[in-house]
């Protein structure tokens, strides 16, 4: 009845070691099979069986993730449709990548809020008594998704998408006027002109996609910078939080030169941790690059974990940092409390409120609970939820941007193949709609408005 296939991460993001991606609809199995490499042939396996294998990126041929994949054929599934659930154990980035690979396939789209449940109900899987609960769920989930979506696309991305759509709709209106007013003295639409306009849009889409790959336009979790002088224990803290040895830790000052990202869940709050090269004045050119990056990471951060060494007196660099950080959301971590205290604690207490100062020893694994509590009280406090939908929307944005780019490239191809403009228009219009989906605007009437405001038409 409802035939398109939908996909989403169905576990809360940032929590737990495993993330599950659920795919539901008539193409669920072939969709998964296309990117799944395993001994078993998914297309032929029995229902309700689990399969071990790897998700691969067909373009780069790279293995993205090791997964367990469960196939449940309808009607014996949650939605009563064919369902595939992919359990991944990796971090945030690999889950995101797997979902991307699914959403990039034709006929698959990101699930709307509450859509799995809606389908389950419509397909008769859920009891009548639950109808109202389902409606409430859709309402609340979509309201939240809407406010999150608003937050996400507000500002720069939204303005960029709007500007891009403005260019696309101008081109569209021009094509439409050529079609609907063939006898009017408006400029004739040529293949060259269409190519020129489409290329301009593609160039900008590429720019956006590049930043998307770097994770700059889309925010997953709270960007958290760990700052402090070399060797105060920043990387150790990061590792303690991530419980993985991704950053290289040594005793030699200045070994962490790049900004390293890690996604962790602290008390249910997803944090994107940026470990930073030690912040200090330095003569070493290579290291200085790292320091500059750290400074820019610092200015982008939503939360700053400022690490100090209990065993050393305050350094001038640290005093400067204290000045810089005094008006930012910051937690001051006094590390190495297992060693003798030489730090001017009072000076720090004068500058920062008590609840944002945490004493701990990363090495001894002592005080982590206090750090979590401090982060929670600063951010969680009921105001900020671990917004599981944030992530889905982001993958959606990227998928839509890529689709829009493909549509524009199709339009250019069509001009070379002698396809008439009213058919090329289909591709251009599709791009316009795909961009509109990002900012939640697909209203058709604005094209008509554009035609009449851009051109002088009359009888």
């Amino acid at each position, binding site marked *: 009845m409802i035939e398109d296939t939908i996909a989403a991460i169905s576990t809360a993001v940032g929590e737990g070691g495993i993330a599950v991606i659920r795919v539901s609809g008539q193409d669920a199995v072939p969709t998964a099979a296309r990117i799944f490499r395993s001994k078993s042939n998914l297309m032929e396996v029995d229902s309700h069986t689990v399969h071990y294998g790897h998700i691969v990126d067909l373009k780069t041929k790279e293995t993205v993730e090791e997964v367990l994949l469960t196939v449940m054929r309808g009607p014996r599934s949650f939605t009563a449709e064919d369902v595939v659930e992919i359990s991944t154990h990796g971090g945030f980035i690999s889950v995101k990548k797997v979902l991307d690979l699914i959403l990039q396939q034709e006929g698959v789209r990101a699930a709307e809020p509450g859509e799995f449940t*809606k389908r389950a109900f419509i397909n008769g899987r859920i009891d009548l008594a639950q109808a109202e609960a389902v409606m409430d769920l859709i309402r609340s989930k979509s309201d939240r998704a809407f406010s999150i979506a608003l937050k996400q696309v507000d500002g720069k991305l939204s303005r960029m998408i709007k500007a891009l759509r403005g260019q696309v709709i101008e081109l569209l209106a021009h094509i439409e006027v050529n079609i609907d007013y063939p006898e009017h003295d408006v400029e004739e639409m040529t293949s060259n002109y269409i190519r020129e306009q489409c290329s301009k849009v593609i160039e900008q889409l590429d720019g956006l996609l590049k930043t998307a790959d770097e994770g700059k336009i889309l925010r997953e979790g709270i960007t958290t910078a760990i700052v402090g002088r070399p060797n105060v224990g920043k990387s150790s803290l990061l590792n303690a939080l991530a419980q993985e040895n991704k950053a290289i830790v040594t005793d030699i000052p200045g070994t962490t030169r790049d900004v390293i990202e890690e996604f962790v869940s602290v008390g249910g709050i997803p944090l994107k941790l940026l470990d930073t090269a030690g912040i200090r004045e330095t003569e070493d050119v290579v290291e200085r690059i790292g320091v500059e990056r750290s400074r820019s990471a610092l200015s982008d951060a939503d939360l700053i974990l400022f690490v100090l060494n209990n065993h050393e007196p305050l350094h001038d660099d640290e005093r400067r940092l204290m000045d810089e950080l005094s008006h930012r959301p910051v937690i001051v971590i006094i590390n190495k409390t297992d060693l003798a205290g030489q730090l001017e604690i009072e000076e720090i207490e004068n500058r920062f409120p008590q609840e944002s100062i945490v004493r701990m020893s990363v090495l001894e694994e002592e005080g982590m609970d206090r750090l979590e509590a401090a982060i929670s009280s600063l951010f969680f406090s009921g105001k900020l939820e671990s917004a599981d939908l944030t992530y889905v929307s982001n993958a959606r944005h990227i998928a839509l941007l890529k689709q829009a780019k493909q549509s524009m490239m199709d339009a250019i191809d069509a001009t070379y193949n002698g396809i008439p403009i009213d058919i090329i228009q289909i591709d251009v219009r599709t791009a316009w709609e795909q961009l509109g989906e990002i900012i939640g605007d697909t209203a058709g009437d604005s094209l008509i408005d554009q035609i009449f405001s851009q051109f002088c038409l009359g009888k």
Partner: protein
Amino acid sequence: MGYEAGQFDVIVIGAGHAGCEAALASARMGCDTLLLTINLDMVAFMPCNPSIGGPAKGHVVREIDALGGEMGRNIDKTFIQMRMLNTGKGPAVHALRAQADKFLYQHTMKQTIEETDNLTLRQGMAEEFIVEDGACVGVITKTGATYRARAVVLTTGTYLRGKVIMGELMYESGPNNQQPSVKLSDSLRGLGLQLVRFKTGTPPRVHKDTIDFGKTEIQPGDENPKFFSYETEFSDNEQLPCWLTYTSEDTHKIINDNLHRAPMFSGAIEGTGPRYCPSIEDKIVRFADKPKHQIFLEPEGKNTSEYYVQGLSTSMPEDVQLSILRSIPGLEKVEMMRTGYAIEYDAVVPTQLWPTLETKAVPGLFTAGQINGTSGYEEAAGQGIMAGINAARKVQGKEAVVIQRSQGYIGVMIDDLVTKGTNDPYRLLTSRAEYRLLLRHDNADMRLTPIGYEIGLISEARHQRFLMKKDLVEQEIERLKTAKVKADEELHALLAEIDSAPVQFTTDALSLLRRPEVSYAHLERLVPSPLALTEEMKEQVEIQVKYAGYIEKQLLQVERLGKMEKKRIPDDIDYADVRGLASEAKQKLSDIRPLSIGQASRIAGVTPADISILLVYLEHYNRVVAARG
């Protein structure tokens, strides 16, 4: 002084382009039909441009014809110029446009109506509706005649509280100085219908002998004209050219100097005018950087010297109009025969209608044409035939007929009107259709003739011809799939001649035809068909093969969305009861009362989340109803 003047099945009020189609459809479907008009000399009158067709509009004329309507046949009999537009573009947007002999057009239509069985044409001004048990069952005219019926179709055009405006001059009038219809407007309000005020306009007409055609460019008709009706096979109508000129710097100066006398800007006009058809003063103000505007000079008929000045619609004072005209190259010494004017009129807010064009407030009362907020003869006729069909079906106790958006421009237009409403007079554009490639000019018969036949407007003989065409086209496409074309000298020569890439091995004819530069005519030279195909059929074959990929894509979309269209919403649903719907959605849905989920999803302000909730509610509702048995 009232008297009982007769009992009918269907009464149609107004004999313009909507009224004529409505009355003819109703009568031809076997309903005893009365067609009432204020002035019998104004049947099928063209108060504005003497032309029919163009993109989207021409498509509608073909659709009317495919359903068994009259407009296509009538213009084929009376055209004085025929042109196929957009021939350089895809087949979906090819569009016929005709210049009509406006007098002949009227007289021919009037005669057809007079000669149609079950149809009574009568002069009279309807002033009041007869309503019993909430339903409309007749009308009373100014002369006291009471006509009774089981359904009434109202097509008032611009007559409803019409007001003509020309500079400082303003008076109550219908188009072309006809009597306006005033009391009917009050009667409609009394029935609870909400009305809006719209405006349109027309340019001056000039005398042919005072035009210096030497200063203009000729625009001839096509040498081998095509026709609107699928029934027209031949015409020996003599064609007349149109002429193209432009406004001058002087024109713009005169208009700018007289803006204080323009009702458009002085505030005298309260109605909302169409955006697509602005007056010349509007164009010059809004597009100030455009140095000149096109002006077409179009003959109004063979036996008249009046020329229509297309592009110069205006409500400037008469003396200013004359100055404007004489500032245009070729018109320096022109004599103005009729003055241009703006006209304001009442229209019904169209979201008060069901997709059948019956008013929700008054069962049995249908409205069609300009009264529903549209503009254009073709738009009016397209609604007219549907209102006539549905009035007749209602009387006969048969299921309503609604054209889907994927079936025709008529469906797009009516759905837009009743679902979204309109803020200014609505004009059809091909860009309003989401399935433009399916709604082609060439395949209106494929889309709608089966419906026309089923409801009894298409004759058995015509239906047989249609089936044969369809069958032969399908056979030919099948043949091409298997017809082998050898990679021989003949093929090489042909491909080289049309600049197409060479072929190395034997190929099938279908693959060759898919190449943009290869036409069916080329193929005929290589693998001639044993079937007796007409030009029309060959065109079908070519289009269906060449654009198969795109057409299939759109068909897939239609199939997907079609499921939403088929999900019916029961009419007794109380949206206030639906938990979780946003309050804006509740309001809109209660007002529009969409018939399907598809229609609901097109209402402005109803979000996908609201649709999800509605789907769940309906499932709940249906299960409860099913449980009750």
